[in-house]
């Protein structure tokens, strides 16, 4: 009998998130496709349609874990549901998405099931009969290769894998009405807020701030740089937003916006996977960072090792002079 691999299908109010379809592409990978008996689990209350959609698109057998207390997400409730699935399937490996909801349950599932835990994986490869995962540390400066222990719960970064191609034949759906007891957590509703920052989507040139910008005063240099270009906008990394340099609506990255401008200036941005997920489709990337080891330089077209407050004013003046000629 083949060992089992199980995918956790993340959804918000029954809408399956893109990252769940990315996980399904693992089931099509050479070596992995035949090595495992694949299934996927989705927890919730009204999830039969979502389960059918996932099974149809991916061809994977979906176990729908149904209970009225699972209408809204709580770590406690969804953990109990996935424990039910794990007891039924007894997976050698569980794949979940490395998202706020995925990270809420995956480590706890590993503990409850006595499985190892490997998180924020960027790449999965197969060699010598083993699965090799590559993840990153220290904001992307260091890559870590790990041979996945058995059994393991593994979270995969959104965007790291391609979305699964449409399957030729649909997978089965098995609905389970599960008993999860009484929950202590009382999960509330999901609120969607309209944030600022829509202009980032249409901007041809984006000047983006990171932790390395340092102080709000230095944002002036970024505004001057942006003003050299028509149809430009200013964005920032999570760190820049946390520091109050940029409004959260203008955050670029995994938990923010995804952009694909013609030209992207990464100013004082180290280049964590979190950020790169949101800007890797920029056509040209210019990175300015005083840390020569910053991983942003690995994906940039042009790299300048310098402080923002030193380099940017000199560049802006130079362009101003050229334009005057």
């Amino acid at each position: 009998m083949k060992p089992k691999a199980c995918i956790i299908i993340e959804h918000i109010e029954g809408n399956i998130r893109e990252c769940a379809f990315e996980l399904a592409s693992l089931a099509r990978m050479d070596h992995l496709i035949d090595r495992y008996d694949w299934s996927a689990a989705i927890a919730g209350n009204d999830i039969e349609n979502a389960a059918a959609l996932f099974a149809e698109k991916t061809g994977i057998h979906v176990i729908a874990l149904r209970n009225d207390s699972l209408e809204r997400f709580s770590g406690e409730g969804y953990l109990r549901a996935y424990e039910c699935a794990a007891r039924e399937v007894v997976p050698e490996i569980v794949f979940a998405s490395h998202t706020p909801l995925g990270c809420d349950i995956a480590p706890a599932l590993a503990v409850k099931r006595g499985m190892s835990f490997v998180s924020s994986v960027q790449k999965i490869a197969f060699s010598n009969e083993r699965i090799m995962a590559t993840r990153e540390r220290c904001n992307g400066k260091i890559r870590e290769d790990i041979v996945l222990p058995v059994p393991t719960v593994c979270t995969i970064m959104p965007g790291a894998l391609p979305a699964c191609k449409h399957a030729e034949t649909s997978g089965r759906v098995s609905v389970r009405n599960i008993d999860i007891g009484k929950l202590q957590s009382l999960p509330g509703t999901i609120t969607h807020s309209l944030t600022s920052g829509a202009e980032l989507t249409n901007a041809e040139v984006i000047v983006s701030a990171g932790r390395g910008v340092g102080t709000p005063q230095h944002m002036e240099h970024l505004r001057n740089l942006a003003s050299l270009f028509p149809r430009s906008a200013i964005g920032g990394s999570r760190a820049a937003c946390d520091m109050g340099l940029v409004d959260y609506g203008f955050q670029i990255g995994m938990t923010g916006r995804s952009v694909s401008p013609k030209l992207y200036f990464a100013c004082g941005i180290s280049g964590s996977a979190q950020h790169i997920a949101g800007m890797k489709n920029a056509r040209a990337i210019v990175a300015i960072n005083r840390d020569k080891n910053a991983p942003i330089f690995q994906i940039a077209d042009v790299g300048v090792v310098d402080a923002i407050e030193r380099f940017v004013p000199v560049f802006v003046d130079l362009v101003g002079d050229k334009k005057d000629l």
Partner: protein
Amino acid sequence: MHILVFIKQVPHGESPFEISKDGHTIQFPSNTSYAINSYDEYALEEALILAEIIPDTVISVATIGPKKAETALRRALAIGAHHAYHYIAENASVVSTFEKAEILAEHAKSHPFDIILAGSMSEDSAHAALGPMLAALLDIPWATHIMKLEVNPAEKSIRAQREIDVSTRQSITLPMPALIAVQSGINRPRYPSLSNTLRAKKQEIVEILLHRTSQSNAKSRFHLPHRTKETHMLTGSCEENARALYEYLHTKSLL
């Protein structure tokens, strides 16, 4: 009310490092500067904010780390934590997150708490695992990536808001005791005053020597990321670099 805050000391983000020849260890030079993991600073600040609102709140901080991690605890005391516990492990970087969760779960079982606060992840190892692991070991409710926290001590309940993405949040109510892992940006961490920094130098830190050796069998190999592009690194003076960047953008019709 008792709040436990678990913190970790990490090397400063721009610290130089070396990867050992066999790829199994990351070495930082002896002059590396260390700080409290920024996510944990937000957790600590959230505890301090709660203590300002709720009378008779006691904040205890604990860390697992080498002797030098004491400076992280001193800083926590300087900004307002009441008690500090140091689980000393010189080889803390090879102790797995699960083993750390086990140690801290034992700590929580022998100390009173209503809320455990932690950061959602660490800046260096970035597992984002400790909080939910700890909650699972203690069998208490939890919520991670929290961007808003309200505590009702009379009802012994916590109302929190988690960030799913920048425009999507979910509210959740948990009874105490519970574990809350905060997302970065939930607040603005304060700085210690000089007088409090001096006072904290004399405060007691409870030290517990860890004798266990790591049972973790997952062996990692570290390496630098590979270049995905032919990056044109500008290495001249500031003015030369500015001219070179101008030429590049000009030839690409971007400027």
